[in-house]
């Protein structure tokens, strides 16, 4: 019985009821799919009219009536926040960081390719389609050609690194995580060190992605430790872990963010320097996500057959090594899709930072609607743009997780 405790129930995509293998002529196809019975025909007409109207209105809004110049003017705020430059950030730093990140993505994809999991060109394009669409939409709002060229350069860097890493021998790619960590830290450093801007001046998409990434990285060890503690045979440690996990999972994230904002300061020793707004938010999101990660990892631990532990014991491994070398790797591999799902919901949850006054993507849209734009009823455009960006990020990731699920055979018994 594998009880994988995921926050989000991710089921495999629906099977297409039309069997492939032989081709039908269009009329049979129409009959089968749209006019199978009188009821089906009525549904077809009703939904056809509804869908056509909806698509017409959406297209009209996107291409005709929407006042998108507003996004063009505020694009920088949406991407990096309104205070990015005032806080010491510069465009060259930003692009350098972006190139480092695209190299990082290239290394990741290359490692996957080196392990023989590469997909064909068509498949790759299909997978990247939502992300490329998002990039194209963002670039369509830029005023000069430079960002487009630089973005194309970043894609080229990604492809080159991917190919290069894909050719490396497996012994080297196993150590690639060192390079990945170095690249991530370097990207953050380029933005913050050497008289750069502090986190507190960040905003927009940059902040959204940064908070989500920092929180998932920090919460992972916490989650693994809690899960091991909950599954351990130590009667004194188990209740501590169970209590923590159930307490955190029983309350909404926003209450924890409020605690971070208004109450966390009370727990620091008097006179100590207290962490900034964004750091406090990251701490609270980490504590929150740790509990959910723990439940996911626990599911993974339960899915490892007992025979594995027994075999490890039989060949004389110590309990610590059994856990580290035998049980955990298998457990974690089993729950990668669920962890991706957790990452998606974490990314969506970063919108709550708006409530505590941090200007992430949604917060920027609020800011952009005040001042000069007040009273122009531009809210729909701002929301649509932000929603679209979130949709691109989340949809790409959920697709990736479904693919992983299929490849790892999770859920197939």
């Amino acid at each position, binding site marked *: 019985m594998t009880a994988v405790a995921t*926050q*989000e*129930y991710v*089921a495999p995509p*629906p099977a297409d*009821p039309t069997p492939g293998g032989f081709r039908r002529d269009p009329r049979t196809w129409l009959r089968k*799919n*749209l006019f*199978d019975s009188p009821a*089906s025909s009525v*549904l*077809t007409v009703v*939904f056809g009219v*509804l*869908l056509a109207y909806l698509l017409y209105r959406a297209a009209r809004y996107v291409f005709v009536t929407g006042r998108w110049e507003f996004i063009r003017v505020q694009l920088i705020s949406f991407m990096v926040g309104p205070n990015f430059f005032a806080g010491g950030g510069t465009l060259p730093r930003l692009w350098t960081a972006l190139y480092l990140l695209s190299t990082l993505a290239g290394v990741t994809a290359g490692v996957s390719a080196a392990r023989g999991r590469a997909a064909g060109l068509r498949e790759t394009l299909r997978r990247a389609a939502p992300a490329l669409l998002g990039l194209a939409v963002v670039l369509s709002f830029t005023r000069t050609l430079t960002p487009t060229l630089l973005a194309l350069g970043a894609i080229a860097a990604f492809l080159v690194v991917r190919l290069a890493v894909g050719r490396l021998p497996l012994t080297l790619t196993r150590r690639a995580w060192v390079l990945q960590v170095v690249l991530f830290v370097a990207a953050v450093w380029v933005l913050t060190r050497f008289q750069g801007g502090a986190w507190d001046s960040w905003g927009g998409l940059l902040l959204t992605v940064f908070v989500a990434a920092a929180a998932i990285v920090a919460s992972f060890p916490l989650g693994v430790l809690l899960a091991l503690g909950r*599954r*351990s*045979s*130590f009667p*004194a*440690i188990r209740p*501590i872990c169970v209590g923590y996990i159930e307490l955190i999972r*029983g*309350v*909404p*994230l*926003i*209450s924890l963010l*409020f*605690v971070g904002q*208004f*109450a966390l300061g*009370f*727990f620091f*020793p*008097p006179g100590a320097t207290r962490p900034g707004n964004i750091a406090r938010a990251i701490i609270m999101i980490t504590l929150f996500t740790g509990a959910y990660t723990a439940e996911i990892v626990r599911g993974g631990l339960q899915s490892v057959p007992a025979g594995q*532990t027994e075999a490890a*014991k039989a060949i004389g491994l110590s*309990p*610590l090594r059994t*856990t580290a070398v035998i049980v955990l790797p298998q457990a974690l591999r089993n729950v990668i899709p669920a962890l991706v799902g957790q990452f*998606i919901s974490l990314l*969506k*949850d970063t*919108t*709550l930072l*708006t*409530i505590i006054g941090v200007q992430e993507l*949604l917060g920027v849209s609020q800011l952009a609607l005040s001042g000069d734009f007040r009273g122009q*009823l531009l*809210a*729909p455009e701002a*929301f649509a743009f*932000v*929603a679209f960006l*979130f*949709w691109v990020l*989340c*949809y790409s990731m*959920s697709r990736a997780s479904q693919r992983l699920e299929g490849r790892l055979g999770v859920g197939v018994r």
Partner: protein
Amino acid sequence: MAAVAGRVPAPSASGRTPLWRDVRVLRILLQVAVVVGVAALLNYLYGNLVTNLRSTGLSPGYGFLRQPYGVDIPGSDFRPGQSVRDALAVGFANTLRVAGVGILLATVIGIAVGVGRLSTNLLVRRSAALYVETLRNIPVFLIIFFMFTVVIQGLLPPITEAIEVLGITVFSNRGLYIPFLEAQANVGVFTAVTGLGLMAAIVVMAWRTRRSDATGAPHHRVLWGLGVLAGVVVVGYLALDQPVALTVPSREGRAVTGGLEVNPSYAALLIGLVIYTASHIAEVVRGSIQSVAKGQGEAATAIGLTAFQRLRHVILPQAFRVMIPPLANQYLNLTKNSSLAVAIGYFEITRVTTSVIGNAAPAPQGFSVLMLLYLILSLGISLVANLVNRRLRIGTR
């Protein structure tokens, strides 16, 4: 099992394991170390808390619960002079109002969309997929915020040009008024009679089931149950001289009389939560229907069941069992997400708590009360889900 028993230690010269290599001793030492560490950390934090509260002049206790709340709560007969505790009670009721109605609506829409994704009609299938894949990948807070600022505040007309559908609704940015039942005299007795009718219906249904089990005759228990309930309600309604009446809102200029007033913030929150959660529930429903082994459906067709019978007696009972834990998870999420009302001004517990904190109550205690209330809600939902889960498992496997 992590870190259980160590390597079998080599016997030392004296034939006894030294203490520092004895696994039993090490296990106890480790646990003592962890417990002492956690206790020390908590003690340290608590010490800091007390010191900081003293230095800022806040009292360390929960005395603020008895202070007057000081503000009006829209949509309730709460008076500003009443205590914080009463305000929290009103907020709790408001949270329940959103969560209860939201769970009901989200389940209905979610099941419809989830079944729609498995329809044989291509257009229905694609429409359901469009709904799910769009809403599932957008943050719920964005949806709620959009509903409030754009739909409720932006699209609804001012009160003088309110939308009056069929003359029975008054929709304006001031508030949404819909027809509702209005209590007259004897409503308490009528409620009691309805409750008795419900109990009688359950007893009759149990009796029909037993009879059907004994004789094999068709039970028609739903029909019997509804009949009994309807009979009792109608008799009670007539005997008590119309204890409830329908009230329809009507507008004259800027004033609206009658009907049920729905707070605009409540409407925005409810719609946002429902359409978002429904997209997740749809996935749960689809996943659990697909999780029923294919042979089950084929076998049902082979023994000559109709499509409806196959769904009703073979597929759904099995799918429902798989559905309960993830469904309960979604209900929990909806309840917790109702806290997002804090940003759009609907006074549920989070909103009430933040305004209490803003009113100089100590933040740590205030939020500890809030978290306790949410824990009670979450544990309640989990408890019900576990009970249903256990009931469905017994006798079936």
